[in-house]
């Protein structure tokens, strides 16, 4: 596994250089911010997509404070922060930043980027996903996004090309699902630290290469021995996002002897359970797969009970011993949902640990964070021993 991960990391790291080269060859570079933007249309328009989802450094969120209040989540702030710090090599060459408007945090950051003169295109994603009016609005937004892609690239998007790209994304999803299934083993051969990185690499590495590497990895892992201690606590990670670079919490949990065997995150991970159908209208299919039929993200309301049903399903299917709720600072809706989830989990006798990150991983902050996570894992170990 190590060699494959290393190779993928190398290729993902080289992505900005490839983008620069593509730009010099006359291609357009399009950044986008999340799962509600179909990158398949960007590729089909002949442009190069790049996911803007980097986080985990305290300096980047602070860099926007000259323009913004601090009461926004650190991932949204990082979207502008790295660029303001001069640490983002893609945004300066980007031809367009497509930003899904899922909450006010990303909304305000979109405006900051516009204010700073960057080309921003907003795609509205209404929170009342179960209403036809919202579905129609989102579809209309996606049609405008497609038209914008054609305008920026000067290329007419060919529907068959989009279909081919969706087929590749589905193929990546299928392989991620197979690898994720291996986490259901009593002692999984892969941890979340690797699994989330696979997701992150898949946004940056060439799709065909990624499909090949995921096949190789699955072949290597399917009969491999477990990488954890026998009978280690099994964790479900629920939350907003594990951004590209934000690997501290999974690492501490795994170092403490727990295995994160299931995840329920809204961003920073592929929606690998939700394939887009390839027959018929692709925008309709995308909206069905990623908006209408998918388990709603936290910000969509009223969805908490539906989301909790999904949490319960994951707990049962993955024989979960404890839930770690990982939210970002100032994520008020996640905070509110967490109160309900904590109460419902307590009624189920399921231990839960709530964490809130402001991407502050200084030496002084790491001590208390490590204490929390290790205590939680030790308590779960004790619970298993006494069961």
């Amino acid at each position: 596994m190590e060699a494959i991960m290393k190779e993928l990391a190398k290729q993902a790291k080289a992505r900005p250089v490839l983008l620069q080269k593509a730009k010099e060859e006359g291609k357009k570079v399009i950044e986008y911010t999340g799962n509600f933007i179909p990158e398949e249309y960007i590729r089909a328009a002949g442009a190069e997509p790049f996911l803007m989802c980097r986080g985990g450094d305290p300096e980047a969120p602070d860099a926007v404070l000259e323009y913004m209040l601090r009461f926004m989540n650190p991932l949204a702030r990082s979207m502008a922060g790295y660029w303001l710090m001069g640490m983002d090599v893609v945004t300066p060459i980007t031809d367009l930043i497509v930003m899904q408007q899922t909450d006010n945090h990303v909304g305000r950051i979109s405006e900051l980027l516009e204010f700073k003169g960057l080309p921003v295109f907003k795609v509205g994603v209404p929170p009342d996903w179960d209403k036809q009016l919202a579905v129609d609005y989102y579809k209309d937004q996606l049609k405008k996004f497609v038209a914008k892609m054609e305008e920026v690239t000067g290329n007419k998007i060919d529907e068959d090309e989009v279909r081919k790209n969706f087929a590749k994304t589905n193929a990546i999803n299928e392989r991620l699902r197979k690898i994720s299934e291996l986490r259901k083993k009593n002692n999984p051969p892969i941890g979340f630290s690797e699994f989330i990185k696979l997701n992150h690499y898949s946004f940056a590495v060439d799709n065909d290469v990624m499909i090949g590497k995921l096949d190789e990895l699955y072949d290597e892992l399917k009969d491999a021995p477990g990488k954890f201690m026998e009978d280690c606590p099994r964790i479900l990670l629920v939350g907003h996002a594990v951004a590209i670079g934000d690997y501290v919490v999974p690492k501490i949990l795994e170092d403490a002897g727990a295995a994160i065997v299931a995840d329920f995150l809204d961003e920073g991970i592929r929606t690998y359970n939700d394939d887009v159908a390839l027959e018929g209208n692709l925008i309709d299919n995308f909206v069905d797969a990623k908006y209408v039929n998918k388990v709603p993200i936290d910000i969509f309301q009223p969805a908490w009970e539906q989301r909790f049903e999904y949490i319960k399903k994951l707990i049962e299917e993955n024989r979960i011993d404890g839930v770690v709720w990982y939210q970002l600072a100032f994520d008020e809706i996640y905070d509110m949902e967490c109160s309900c989830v904590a109460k419902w989990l307590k009624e189920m006798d399921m231990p839960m640990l709530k964490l809130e990150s402001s991407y502050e991983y200084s030496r002084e902050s790491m001590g208390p964070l490590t204490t929390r996570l290790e205590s939680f894992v030790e308590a779960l170990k004790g619970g298993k021993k006494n069961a």
Partner: protein
Amino acid sequence: MIFAGVDIGSTTSKAVLLDENGKNLIFALIFTTFDRNQSGEDVLKKALEQSGNKWEDVAFLVSTGYGRKAFERANMDLPEIICHATGTHHLYPGVRTIIDIGGQDSKVIEMDGKGMVTRFEMNDKCAAGTGRFFEVLTNRLLNVPMEELGELALRSDNPCVISSMCTIFAESEIISLLSQGIPKEDIVAGMCKSVTRRIVNMGKSGQITYQEPIIFSGGVANNEGVRAYFEQFLKKKVTAILMPQSTAAFGAALAAKENYEKAHG
């Protein structure tokens, strides 16, 4: 052969030594310095000297507390929440809730009555609601020794309302109260009440229901005023543990004994 538990906290480092039968041999305490490894060495040395033992008598050593990972001599480290629970359950079998207020953090730990932690809440981001709150405000403003705070608070019939959210704001409030001639006991009682309210609410926000028996530990458990306010807020009996600063080190020493015995049949 002895077993050692060393708790390297943010303010003080503590060591507990147990003999082969798990009896408490000795407890030592020093102030933690910037060098956490050295603090561990120093407090263990002090305990060994007090007990007349030598370094080589220590069969197994478990470190805990904020500086646990820095202590190179330890055979293993455990988070302090687990050690608090182990130590407290040993002293008070059946304990269901532990309230611990240390120098730099505070914790509410819920237990199953059989020694297992079922959930916990921690305040580790802010001095409000910790021993540091008292340290900063009493030393700087009131000129009252820490050990007299509790007694002073209990004398008050009219506790002031003081911010529970921020030590800096609380400081301004106290300066204002002093300038108005408000008696010190009312201010100190207000501080105790403020810390207590904050911690009770912290636990409640984490679905902790404060089941009895409730044990109060950590350095602030020496403050009788805070204990009394916990009882008032919770309407339940709250017992301050004896030698409240020793619990985590004691739990670590028990874990040292258990792990040694596991490894050696």
